């Protein structure tokens, strides 16, 4: 493989890992727990920002050309951990307000509004977030320690990304395969009936929302430290819909579906097509990407409404000798 090809493939693999993490997180919230989190991208952006300001040095360095808070210059993997914590904490805050008393359609509206507010706040609070310019020159984890060639470091980052992705997969699998996952699906299907059977609906929703938010934060950190930049323009509310499209296409409520959806929608349709040469009016190709995502979602909902890999109930093996009387 030529080195430019290696850059291309490793780039795609990192994006794939980030999007798989994000889709697993959103699937936990939306597919499993039924929470329509149209602000998902905000929690990813918050994690990305956290990782950025924790790895950057003081903002007065380099002539103070960008302004931000903290600048702690923390070593890997602390910024990743902090990003997950911030994503979770922010979710807890939002969840305590939005998930307690509101019906799910109103929850969705609140989330959408939060997404819009977040963009406005970030672009205008220039002291905190450096306005619409965002942050640049974010240091990369272990770059000087490893001392690799640029291509070599690309692959090292792929490994870091996949380790995080596997960790997220294990967390999500353990939740969805446990009685907790079952209770979340029950709340999604009928919250009143779940409450009548002793389930604390608000607490269950918060568990899913906060865990999903922490995963979103981590995925944002992995992305920001890879591209070494963070700007509010790349975390606008339509990005949440890309992840929703991925989950609907892959199969809502199914972790494997979330992974397939991540590979199909954000990676295959959005990332890979960035390399298509521009034609027609400026911006036409970018706009067509959105059209294609919309058409793909509609097609899947029409022909396969539960996605490529629909949710499957858990099956339980019969104990050996069931139904026969055993004498000792």
């Amino acid at each position: 493989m030529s080195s430019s090809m290696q850059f291309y493939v490793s780039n795609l693999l990192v994006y794939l890992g980030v999007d798989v993490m994000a889709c697993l997180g959103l699937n936990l919230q939306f597919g499993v727990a039924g929470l329509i989190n149209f602000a998902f991208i905000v929690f990813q952006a918050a994690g990305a920002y956290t990782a950025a300001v924790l790895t950057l040095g003081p903002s007065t360095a380099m002539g103070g050309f960008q302004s931000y808070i903290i600048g702690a210059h923390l070593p890997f993997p602390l910024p990743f951990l902090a990003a997950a914590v911030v994503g979770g904490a922010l979710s807890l805050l939002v969840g305590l307000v939005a998930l307690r008393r509101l019906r799910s359609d109103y929850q969705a509206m609140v989330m959408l509004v939060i997404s819009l507010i977040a963009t406005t706040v970030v672009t205008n609070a220039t002291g905190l977030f450096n306005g619409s310019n965002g942050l640049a020159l974010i240091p990369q984890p272990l770059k000087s320690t490893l001392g690799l060639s640029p291509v070599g470091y690309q692959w090292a980052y792929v490994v870091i990304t996949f380790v995080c992705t596997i960790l997220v997969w294990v967390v999500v699998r353990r939740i969805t395969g446990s009685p907790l996952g079952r209770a979340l699906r029950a709340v999604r299907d009928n919250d009143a009936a779940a409450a009548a059977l002793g389930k604390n609906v608000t607490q269950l929703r918060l568990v899913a929302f906060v865990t999903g938010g922490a995963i979103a934060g981590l995925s944002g950190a992995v992305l920001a430290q890879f591209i070494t930049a963070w700007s509010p323009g790349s975390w606008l509310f339509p990005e949440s819909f890309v992840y929703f499209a991925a989950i609907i296409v892959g199969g809502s409520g199914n972790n494997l579906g979330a992974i397939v959806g991540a590979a199909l929608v954000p990676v295959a349709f959005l990332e890979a097509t960035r390399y298509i040469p521009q034609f027609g009016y400026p911006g036409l190709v970018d706009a067509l990407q959105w059209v294609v995502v919309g058409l793909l979602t509609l097609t899947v909902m029409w022909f396969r409404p539960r996605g490529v890999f629909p949710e499957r109930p858990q099956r339980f093996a019969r104990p050996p000798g069931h139904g026969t009387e055993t004498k000792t």
Partner: protein
Amino acid sequence: MTPPLLSVRNLAINFGGVQAVRDVSFDVVEGSITGLIGPNGAGKSSVLAIVSGFLSPKSGSVTFDGNEVSGQAPFRLARLGLVRTFQLSSEFERLSVIENLLVAAPGQSGERLRDALAGRWRWRDQEAASIERARGLLDRFEIPAKEDDVAGDLSGGQKRLLELARALMAEPKLLLLDEPMAGVNPALIRRIESHLLALRDEGLSMLMVEHELGVVERLCDPVIVMAQGQVLSSGTMAELRTNQEVLDAYLAG
């Protein structure tokens, strides 16, 4: 004499300007199937919703098993043993039949995040016991669907049986049944009746809202009649049939 399992005193609730329930008091004694009947709009479902915690009363008290419980959240009441079913079928439609029951098992450690994350060994034994109990209930209620079938695909009657089995999985002391026979064919009504009588004979107490007076006559003793948000009368169904006030309320309603 032992105090009643459920004791409702001077319950009242308004919806806007409508006094749906005004000054309702009654008891449910342990081991009884108490019927709650009355014309549409009498306030029966509101009373059931208040007793199960889904509505907060404007005034009055609900005492269950020695505890004052009015205004408590439904999930807390369910954990105390006060479990309700719903008028419309309320299965978890994308869960399998057996998963519907397993959700209801009380005190599952695997529902806590830290135990779920720690892994299967933390909740495996408890789960195995729940599965066995759920299979026992499915056998008992003779639900013809397979345990792995998705609950949303069941027929209306099967959903009724499933909901009853699921409520029992929650280990109730008092079962609140909101029109359990609504939309059920006569043959299945008889089967559900015999299940309910068997459960009563095993010591389960029930409070049941039901429109089908034949069912009420065969199952319930005592029966409480409500009209216009108040208790009109109570007694056995045979006594109530001769009560002119009750007849008027039903004919007028």
